[in-house]
């Protein structure tokens, strides 16, 4: 339930006033946001969980600024990134430099988005179990154990899916199938 299309559908229903859809959306993105912040917090006083909750509140309060003709995840990560920078600013420290340059470079942002779309297209060729495992562990940044827990699979199952998925992608890129 966490593909761009699913999330966007929940968002749009929520904007129409569907409370259940809105809650489902927030529940679905909470682990994605936690993983996003965990990868970027490092040491030094920032709590991924706090940032995640703050971002959920912001997403709720600012939901009218979502433009339904644009991707939901881009909008969501733009808010998450803003909250991250804001948190670093309050600490009077600068965010990790690679992250900052990502944000400053408009071109970089756009190519990151289109790269994400390329990745989505490639993953679309894989069986859903493998693409989901790859997406969660390699893109969202969950650990194998975390993904196993949220998906109900065993850890070895997740590892095998990741392995086969990568092999499938490599074969695809070599043009073998």
């Amino acid at each position, binding site marked *: 339930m966490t593909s761009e299309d699913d999330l966007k559908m929940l968002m749009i229903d929520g*904007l129409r006033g569907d409370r259940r859809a809105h809650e489902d959306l927030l529940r679905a993105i909470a682990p994605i946001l936690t993983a996003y912040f965990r990868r970027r917090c490092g040491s030094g006083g920032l709590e991924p969980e706090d940032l995640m909750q703050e971002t959920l509140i912001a997403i709720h309060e600012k*939901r009218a600024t979502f433009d339904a003709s644009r991707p939901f995840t881009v909008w969501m990560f733009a808010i998450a990134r803003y909250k991250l920078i804001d948190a670093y600013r309050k600490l009077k420290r600068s965010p990790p430099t690679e992250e900052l340059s990502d944000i400053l470079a408009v071109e970089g942002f756009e190519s990151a988005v289109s790269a994400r779309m390329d990745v989505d297209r490639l993953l679309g060729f894989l069986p859903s179990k493998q693409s989901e495992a790859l997406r969660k562990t390699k893109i969202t940044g969950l650990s194998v154990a975390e993904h196993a827990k949220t998906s109900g699979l065993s850890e070895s199952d997740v590892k095998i899916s990741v392995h086969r998925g990568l092999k499938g992608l490599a074969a695809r890129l070599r043009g073998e199938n």
Partner: protein
Amino acid sequence: MDTNDLILRLGADVKPADSRFVTRRLFIALSVGSGLALILLLLWQGLNPDLANAMKHRFFWMKAGYCLALGAPALLSVSRLARPDGQPPRIALSFAVPILLVGLIAAVELVLTPSSQWLAMWLGHSWSVCPWRVLALSGPIFLGLLWAFRAFAPTQLRLAGALAGVSAGALGAMVYGLHCPESSALFLLTWYSLGIGLAAAVGALLGPRLLRW
């Protein structure tokens, strides 16, 4: 707080959202802001007593057109920057168009005018007050935009502030055109632009502080 409790609390607060929220709110802000700027002008400076006559001349419309051509791309960008994932359209060029056009007209003016009168034409009667009045009249419009942005989610605060400043400056200058009796392109190009530029600078300076959320 427990995340689940938080989500339930937020869910309890769900109401249908307006799909044209950003446009509508900007429209309200600009209408109210421009209206207040106009009232300010009437109370403070009054209209140009010769306004009906001035409106027959192309200089009046050149002033209004110049302000509009600067304000429109700025406003378009502001409406994009109201959203967290919004990028301004590539507008550098569209800002250059009115500046170049009025610059061209100013060059023609200079050629047609004896050089002994150039300074008088450039400074007019009000060069020393014009930029400041434009800046003052942009105030209510800028405040309106700040109010609108309180419900938006900008992520490029300095840029959003600067472009809100350009928008407010351009609209403020348009309002000031109802009073201003000057009628040279060189005057417009210098002093109106300076007023709009001041508003942009104020916006860029205040943006990171006032647009935070």
